[in-house]
């Protein structure tokens, strides 16, 4: 299953990856301009912390810049990029887990509560509910809905069958729904 945006953007992603592999400096600028914010937001979802997300984004980009030249299938740029971000984040979380212990691991930094409009309030509620989910459910929802990765891309990135991705996504949706119900956002 592929989303509309993926169908149109995949060749553009591949072209960008190939221009980087050729060594065009302008292509790297375009790659960073195109993907830095999505990668940062994904890392922000995983880490629940702006500063940590910033550090993780730097580590991710170092690996991307050093690795894009040997990317075997440039058409898979998107899943490869997020796969690197995920590995960087998991390495950090594992390190933090060992260093601090599991209890202190997720001291969530909640989104700002200065929203004055209904839409902003809704988004803030979803954001908060999402931040309260376990990391695997949060990651699944972020990749599928916010980053618009296809099920096949997510399966490739997480090295699991598409069926498993579907069932995890289903479970994550239920978890989010429950979290929103608790907050009274939906009935």
């Amino acid at each position, binding site marked *: 299953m592929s989303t509309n945006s993926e169908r149109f953007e995949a*060749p*553009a992603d*591949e*072209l960008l990856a*190939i*221009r*980087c*592999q*050729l*060594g*065009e*400096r302008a292509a*790297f*600028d375009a790659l*960073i*301009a195109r993907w*830095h*914010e999505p990668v*940062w*937001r994904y890392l*922000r979802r995983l880490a629940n912390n*702006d*500063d940590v*997300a*910033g*550090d*993780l*984004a*730097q580590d991710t*980009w*170092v690996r991307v*810049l*050093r*690795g894009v*030249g*040997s990317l075997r299938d*440039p058409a898979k740029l998107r899943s490869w990029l997020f796969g690197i971000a995920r590995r960087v984040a998991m390495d950090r979380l594992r390190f933090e887990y060992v260093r601090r212990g599991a209890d202190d691991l997720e001291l969530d930094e909640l*989104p*700002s509560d200065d929203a004055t409009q209904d839409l902003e309030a809704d988004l803030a509620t979803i*954001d908060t509910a999402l931040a309260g989910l376990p990391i695997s459910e949060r990651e699944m929802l972020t990749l599928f809905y916010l980053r618009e990765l296809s099920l096949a891309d997510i399966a490739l990135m997480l090295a699991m069958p598409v069926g498993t991705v579907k069932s995890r996504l289903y479970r994550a949706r239920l978890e989010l729904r429950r979290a929103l119900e608790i907050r009274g956002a939906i009935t």
Partner: protein
Amino acid sequence: MNTPTNMHAGSLEDIRRLAKGELSMRARIGYVALLLVAAAMTVVVLSLWLTEPALPARTQAAFGVMSLIGSAWVSFAVWALTARRPLFARDAVIAGNLAVVFTSVFVVGAFGAVILSGAAAASGALATGVVMLAVAVWNLFGARRRHAALAARRRELESALRTG
């Protein structure tokens, strides 16, 4: 929610600065030059060491140390070009041309030394230089092939995107 553009660490500007350092052409070509010079120096020292008869122990030890130092620099340059500053397709073609020119000069020099002195060390350096030249030519062809394949795919994609 915050965005990465208003942060201290990991902002778009930070990443652009990071990329500028990571993508420095000067650093890449510097490592290629280091690899070539270190390889040539090691070949000359090894040739002298292995072909000169009845060298004193101290001289042998000195040659051994110099060979080790040269090999260490070669290993470092190979590691840097593999892990730290990998060559992109265009860089690889430039580096390949550099390597062919450098090893050709080395072979001509070694050939001249063989003609003028007839020393066994010069013959050893010449033989190794010829092998290095062959490897450099092989690498250059590989780099050109890869560059051509990527450029062709790029044209295909650009054409497909233009026609929608």
